[in-house]
């Protein structure tokens, strides 16, 4: 076995599917994670290589090599995207094995352009998204949710599961709104006779039945994590198990404990022991989506599959679906529901007003102000408005999720109409 300090070497060998191999030089990018380091590849600007840390390889080389070799030769079918001027990488899927000194060292994958993408986490705290030049509105959020559900559905159909599905592993293309999933080498695969489980999980996105034990049903886990992410995207980053415990109730403080015990306060029927965070706008979401959240995050019901999410969100994601309308302030809102953006802005204004009043009280009557603070603290476990304050206001400009330009679309449609008219005429 090579000594631990032998990796990574400067030069590696890339083994492509079909037996082709080539030598390549690694270019340091300064990106290192728990399992390995990501390098650029000289002469291959569209690819990067992940080289596992020597300590990881010393323990798991055989398992990693078996999995990566299978993945390189079994690229999953993904949702077809309209071709645009620049490619969209939906999965950081291994495309070639990386060998160092004749031994397995990692894999090469298509490069996700970090200039064109941002972490989906930024959509949860919207100020960061705006700093990235991404104007958040419900049309765009629903499109991102739909694209994520569609991608996940495609993987599930091929018996490939993410398991450790969480926002930090997801990137979103700022213009096209497509989603990329990172860390594909951690996926659970159960396809074509090949089985490889995924040991990595994140408690905040782990389904209740898998806390304190191994994940036994990866699809159920992915369904739970998907619902959690969609909920957070549509509810200003609020986790579906974050809430305000009723006084005297035994609600755990940490999210993992609440998930395990099923303290979900955003159901259509309210929970007795925990109530929704005051900053939540879940009441502004359509009943159909709330029913899906209840099925996925509540107790007892069959969790909603990625396909069902994709179908439910498709109408909202399409501009022509007509399932979103503009409120009087120009925000996109769900029909027959209060405008979530206006409600949120009202909550923020109310909070600022309360904060101003509190400061006045503190200055005028310190004794009364102290009692006010105590009563406030007793009623809440956390300060739900802190996150809300950090997120600022939302712009009202709706950007198109279409990738083709209007002119290109018109050109194609003109040709189509002429073609159909010709066929019509020819049949006379």
């Amino acid at each position, binding site marked *: 076995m090579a000594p631990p300090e032998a990796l990574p070497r400067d030069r590696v060998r890339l083994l492509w599917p079909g037996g082709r191999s080539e030598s390549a030089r690694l270019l340091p990018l300064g990106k290192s994670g728990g399992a390995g380091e990501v390098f650029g590849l000289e002469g291959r600007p569209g690819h990067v290589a992940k080289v596992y840390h020597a300590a990881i390889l010393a323990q798991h080389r055989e398992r990693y090599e078996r999995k990566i070799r299978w993945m390189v030769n079994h690229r999953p079918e993904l949702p077809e995207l309209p071709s645009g001027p620049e490619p969209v990488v939906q999965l950081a899927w291994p495309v070639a094995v990386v060998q160092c000194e004749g031994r397995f060292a990692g894999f090469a994958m298509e490069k996700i352009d970090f200039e064109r993408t941002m972490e989906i986490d930024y959509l949860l705290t919207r100020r960061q998204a705006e700093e990235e030049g991404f104007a958040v509105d419900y049309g765009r959020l629903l499109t991102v949710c739909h694209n994520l559900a569609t991608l996940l559905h495609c993987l599930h159909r091929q018996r490939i599961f993410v398991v450790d599905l969480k926002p930090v592993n997801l990137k979103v293309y700022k213009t096209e709104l497509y989603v990329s999933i990172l860390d594909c080498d951690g996926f659970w695969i159960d396809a074509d006779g090949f089985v490889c489980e995924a040991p990595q999980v994140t408690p905040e996105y782990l389904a209740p039945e898998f806390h304190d034990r191994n994940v036994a049903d990866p699809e159920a886990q992915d369904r739970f994590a998907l619902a959690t992410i969609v909920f957070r995207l549509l509810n200003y980053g609020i986790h579906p198990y974050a809430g305000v415990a009723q006084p005297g109730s035994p609600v755990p403080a940490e999210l993992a404990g609440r998930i395990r015990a099923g303290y979900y306060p955003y159901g259509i029927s309210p929970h007795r022991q925990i109530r929704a965070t005051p900053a939540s706008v879940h009441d502004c979401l359509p009943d159909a989506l709330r029913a899906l959240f209840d099925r996925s995050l509540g107790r007892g019901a069959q969790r909603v599959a990625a396909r069902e999410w994709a179908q439910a969100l498709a109408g909202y994601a399409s501009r022509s679906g007509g399932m979103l309308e503009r409120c009087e302030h120009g925000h996109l809102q769900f029909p027959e529901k209060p405008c979530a953006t206006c409600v949120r802005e009202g909550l923020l204004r109310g909070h600022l007003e309360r904060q101003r009043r509190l400061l006045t009280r503190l200055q005028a009557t310190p004794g009364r102000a102290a009692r006010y603070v105590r009563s406030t603290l007793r009623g809440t476990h956390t300060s739900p408005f802190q996150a809300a304050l950090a997120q600022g206001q939302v712009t009202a400009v709706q950007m198109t999720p279409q990738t083709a330009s209007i002119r290109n679309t018109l050109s194609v449609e003109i040709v189509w109409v*002429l073609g159909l008219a010709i066929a019509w005429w020819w049949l006379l």
Partner: protein
Amino acid sequence: MTAATAILVAVLAACLALAWAWRPRKRIDRGAIALDIAFALLGAWALWFGLLADGAAEPAGLAHWKPTILYWTLAAILVAAPALGQLHPIRYILGTYFVFSRGEWKWMNLGFAILFAILGAVNLYIAYRYDETSWGGFKWGCRINFLFLILLRISFVWMDTLARILERLVQRWSGPRP
């Protein structure tokens, strides 16, 4: 050439010029090109015998074969394009606004190819086994199918594009935001 014909030709030429000027500047799949060529050939045929042949008639008996030729041409393109390494042409017939996986497009492509092949055969069966009125009804059904395609594109593409155009216009008229 009458004035109406001249106007029609001018409008068509303008549309084609616009389509060419605004065409997507990317590699176009050959399946889509094959569909366009097929429509262009049918158009040339119709143009020749409809307007330019100066009294020359189409070959006798061809009228009954026309729906079959159209359907079987479409079926042939649907089958041939993927076999030659191109994408599934059904994507262009239905529209790329649907998000399906490659496998789903494959089966839809095959399904439509079989459907078109069967419809082409049914046309011949009706044309030669039933009276002219029945066959006329079937041919009318073929043309209604094209209306269905138009309806699909109106719902999923044109309305969306119109909304985008209107939004762009509103943005332009309302001026820059403070």
